[in-house]
Structures are given as structure tokens and as C-alpha cells.
């Protein structure tokens, strides 16, 4: 579902991502951890087709993100840390626009919007402008926007950043459900409790490289630490 091989992204002399390889299978939830500047967001932005890789290969749903970017993006649900909502559009208009851009027909889209409004509890404010919504409401609309076209791959960049526990739980529930439905999920986070709870596998990044990989238990054993937070610090500070 997600395949990354020898992926590099350089900005001048800065090697933001340097030879990263990993794969995410359907039903898997993979957490991307690392200190700020480790290369997580750049990796996810390459997967989303926002940045072109300097070297290497990345595919979403079997589509090369460079050679077939539109197919790759059609298979992708990408959620950024900022909600990225149009303040002057309503959630219904947002969902309709992005669903249509993904090639959904009007009837199917209308049913999908109804279903998402029910699942994510958007009904009360679906026709209010996004600029008037609370942070939690906005995040729910943002999730709906990312998955309105029923993608097979979810790429979430710090989806719970700046959210209260109630709003975060909506995201966590979404990720759990997506994995159950056979979606491949990769997300970056700084919240160790979330990573431990959700991820079937965790990837640690440091200075653009992948330095450790495994389940939460495996990483504790490898790093010789007692908690995932301690493991995080271990790897972030240069441990192997």
C-alpha cells in the first residue's frame, strides 16, 4: 500500500530525508517518531506529492508519487497539522469540492457526505462557515475532507497536535477504524501514548534517516529503556 525505497530529499546542502525505506501494509498503523527536524514531515510531504524526492522511490496504492502523482493522490487521504479549512466555505462545500476533485460522482458523493456527517458528528454545523467552528469541530471537518474520497491510504501529519483529549480521541478512533477496514495508515506524532496505543509498528527518524523500526515492545527491548518516551530520547540523542 505504501512503499518507500531509498527516499531522499535535499534542500541545498541540507539532507532533510536521507535514504529512507519502509513499507506499510493494508490494516497496518505505522507511527513515524522523531525530534523536530528529524525529517518526518518532509517524508510525509513527499508521500503526499507536495515535494518531489531528490532520489529514491515512493508509491501510494501501487502508484509512483512522481510518475503517476494524480493516481497516487487519489489513493491518499492526507491530513496536515493545520486544519487547512476555507474559512468562508461550509463543511458541506469543502467536502463536496474535495470529493468532486477526487473524481466522485455527485450522487455517491452526496451519500458519502451524509455518512461522514453522521460518523464524525458534523450534522449540526455542516452548513455553517468553517470560520465560525471550534477547534474540535474544525479538526473533524478536516478529517472528513481528507477521507471523503474513501482513500486506501491515510497519511496523517501530527493529527492530534494542539487538540484537547476529546478532539484527539476522534482522530484515534478514526485511525483504529481505518486499520480495521484494511487501510494502510502512517502518521507522525510527538505523543508517545498515542503511538504505543495505536501503532502496529514504529519508525524512529533522526537527521533524515531511519534509525530504528519495530513494535513498541521491540523498540523497548532494542533500546534497553522502560518506556517509549525514554526510547524516544535514547534514539533522538544518537542511540542505536
Amino acid at each position, binding site marked *: 500500500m505504501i512503499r518507500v525505497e531509498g527516499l531522499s530529499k535535499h534542500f541545498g546542502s541540507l539532507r532533510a530525508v536521507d535514504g529512507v525505506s519502509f513499507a506499510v501494509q493494508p490494516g497496518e498503523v505505522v507511527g513515524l517518531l522523531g525530534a523536530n527536524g528529524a525529517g518526518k514531515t518532509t517524508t510525509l510531504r513527499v508521500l503526499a506529492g507536495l515535494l518531489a524526492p531528490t532520489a529514491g522511490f515512493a508509491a501510494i496504492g501501487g502508484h509512483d508519487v512522481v510518475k503517476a502523482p*494524480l493516481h497516487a493522490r487519489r489513493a491518499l487521504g492526507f491530513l*496536515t497539522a493545520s486544519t*487547512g*479549512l476555507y474559512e*468562508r466555505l461550509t463543511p458541506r462545500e469543502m467536502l463536496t469540492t474535495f470529493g468532486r*476533485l*477526487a473524481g466522485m460522482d455527485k450522487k455517491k458523493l452526496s451519500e458519502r457526505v451524509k455518512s461522514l456527517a453522521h460518523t464524525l458528528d458534523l450534522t449540526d454545523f455542516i452548513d455553517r462557515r468553517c470560520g465560525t467552528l471550534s477547534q474540535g469541530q474544525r479538526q473533524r471537518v478536516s478529517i472528513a475532507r481528507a477521507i471523503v474520497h474513501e482513500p486506501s491510504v491515510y497519511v496523517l501529519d501530527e493529527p492530534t497536535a494542539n487538540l484537547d483529549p476529546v478532539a484527539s480521541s476522534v482522530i484515534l478512533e478514526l485511525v483504529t477504524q481505518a486499520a480495521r477496514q484494511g487501510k494502510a495508515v502512517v502518521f507522525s506524532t510527538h505523543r508517545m501514548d498515542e503511538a504505543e496505543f495505536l501503532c502496529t509498528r514504529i519508525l524512529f527518524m533522526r537527521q533524515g534517516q531511519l534509525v530504528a523500526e519495530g513494535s513498541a515492545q521491540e523498540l523497548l527491548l532494542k533500546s534497553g529503556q522502560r518506556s517509549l518516551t525514554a526510547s524516544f530520547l535514547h534514539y533522538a540523542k544518537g542511540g542505536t
Partner: protein
Amino acid sequence: MNDAFGILLKKELTDALRDKKTLLVMIVVPILLYPLLMTVIGVAMSLGKSRLEREPLVVAVTSDDARALLETEPVPPFTTYARLDGAQAVQRLRERKVAAVVEAPQGAAQVSTQGGQALVTVRYTKRFDASLEGLERVRRVLKTLEEKALKTRLAKAELPRDFAEPLKTEALDVDFQEDLGPFIASRLLPLVLVLMLFMGSLYPAIDVIAGERERGTLETLLVAPVNPQTVMFAKYFTVVVVSSAAALANIAVMGLTFGIGFRLDASVSAKLTFTAAQMGVMFACLIPAAFAVSAVSMGVASLAKSFKEAQSMLTPVSTLASLPGIVALMPGVELNTTTAAIPLVNVALLIKAVVLNTARPLDVAICIASVAVLAVLAMRVLSKVFAHESLRLTGASGFGEALRTLRQR
């Protein structure tokens, strides 16, 4: 129009037209601007004139002869003559305490009966309007005195009136009333229209790229399965629509304002109606001009990292935007085969020529072609900027960095 472009354009237009600032520039300003401007000019001129006519003024006379000369005629209403010596009178004029200073030679009052010529000097200043009004009041008195003196002399010499006027010149403006509306519009419209094309494009140009970058919506949009160039063109067309609408709203409202006519004072009113052909030529030139201007605004705005930075980068552009209109205001600068080839200046000159009904088909064709070439070039630059990954996503810190980034590609 492919599906994605249509969907994006609809989204962009909905978003832009719900923005109060865009609506303000596009519709409210032109609707209010002209009627307000014309009313204010008309009322201000009329009020100012009648206020000055009733303003009590002191006119200094520097000698008893000057006073005697002026008092031969009734003192004009709201006017007082004050005897002051020469230097003191001029000082008072500087201090705005007197409106004018009248100097006359000895025996000036007796000139009509005794013959000879008296040189009467009226000192005034353009620095304050009351002085101009003072000059006008004194001139009227002196004109009456001159007329009477001349009449007396001619009668005494038993000469006819035309003896003193071997050549009488009369300049008649045969269609002054009809020309006044086009004359005022030809000065006002080029300046306002070219400026409004720019002003109409500025805010949406900043908002659709730099603004969206700041709000994180650009990234959301670029992750959708759509070609980034399609995204750019949808945004670009939105800016063009807003910019054109602002310019067309200006023409429509100015047309209506002049169509109804507005009064400059009790005797002069200005009226103007555009024919369908005039409107057609203006639209044919303004639409490519809107494409060119929008591409320039959006090209510059798309380089900025933030909304604020885009505003700073566009400040020199908006200052330059007033230049074509100013050039069109310059006496003697008109649309010809040379000026028709200078982009944007030609738009201002064409509008001036169309309003005055002096535009020639060849010049119009050159003008439209020249603006269309600029539009295509500006679009290509914009397209290049948007095709560049880092400029598209983050912009640049100023023109220098943008150029370096473009060269590095």
C-alpha cells in the same frame, strides 16, 4: 473547461465573493465613488464660490488717490477699503489680513475727465482663495470705471465706440456643453480604470496564494488529485474575474453618473453617454488588460511567504499602477501607433481616446495586441513561479531570493 478547473474555479469564486474586502473593492467602492465624487465636486465648488462671495473682505488702498478712484463706484458688497501704507499693506496681505492691495498714481480718479492713463496695480496672492476673490471684486470695480472713462472720452471726442476697439475678438466654444462630460471623463476614467484593475487584483492575488499558504489551505488543495497548474489557473481566473468586475463596475457606474449628468455650478452641467461601440472597445481592451495586470499582481504576490510580505512586495507595483493614468493626463500625450504599443499606458490612452471619440481602429488593434502579449508573458512567468516546488509551497523572502531560486532550477 475541464472538470477539475471548473470545480476549483467555483470554489475560488465562492470563497472570494464571500470576502467582504474583495466585495468592497469590486462593487461598493465604484458604486459609491463616482456619484459621491461628482456630488462632492459639484457641491464643494458651488458652496465654496457662494461662501467666498459673501465673505467680508478688506481691500487695502495705499493712497487717498487709490481710495478715491475705487470709491467713484459703489463699494462691492461685503467689502471694506482700508488705507494703509505700501509696505504695511503687503505685510497684511502676507498675513492674510487683507485680500488685495490697490495702488494708484496721483489723480487716478480724474483720468476719465482729464485724459492720460493711470496704471493701477492690484497685488494679491494665490495662496488663499479670499485673495483671489478680493482681486475679482476690485477688477469688477476697475472694469466698470474703465468702461465709464472710455465712454466719457469717446463722447467728448465725438468718436464711435468701435474707435477704441478696432479688432474685437470673440472665442466661441461651439459645443462646450456636449464636450464637458467627455472632457472630464477622459481625464478621470483612464486614471481610475487602470488603477482599479490593479487595486481589484491586489487583494485576491495576495489572498489566493500567500494568504492560503499562511492559513494552510494551499497545502490541502495541492494534495488533492489535481495538477498544480490547474490549481494556479483556477486561482488566476478568479483574480481576473474580480479585477475585471472592479473595472467594469467602474465603467458602468461612471457611465450612469455621467449619463444622468452632474452639475458643476448653476450654469454648467456635464453629461456623457457611451455608445455600444465605445463600450465594446473599452471592454475588448480591459479584459486582456485584466489578464495582464492579474498575472503581474499574482506573480509578485505568489513569491511572498506571508500575506503581510505580499502586501509589502506589491506596494511598489500599486504605486507604478497609477503611472499609466498620470501619463494619460499629460497634455499632448495621445493614442497613436507608438503609444498604442506601450502596455498599460496604451490602455489608459485608449480609454481617453474612446471617451473623446478619437480612437482609430489601427491604434485600437495595436493596443489590444500589445496588452494580450503582456498578458501571455506575465502568465508564463506566473506559471514558472508556480511550477517551482519551493516557491509554490513557501514563497521567497523578496525578489532577489525568488530570482535565485528560479535560476537554481
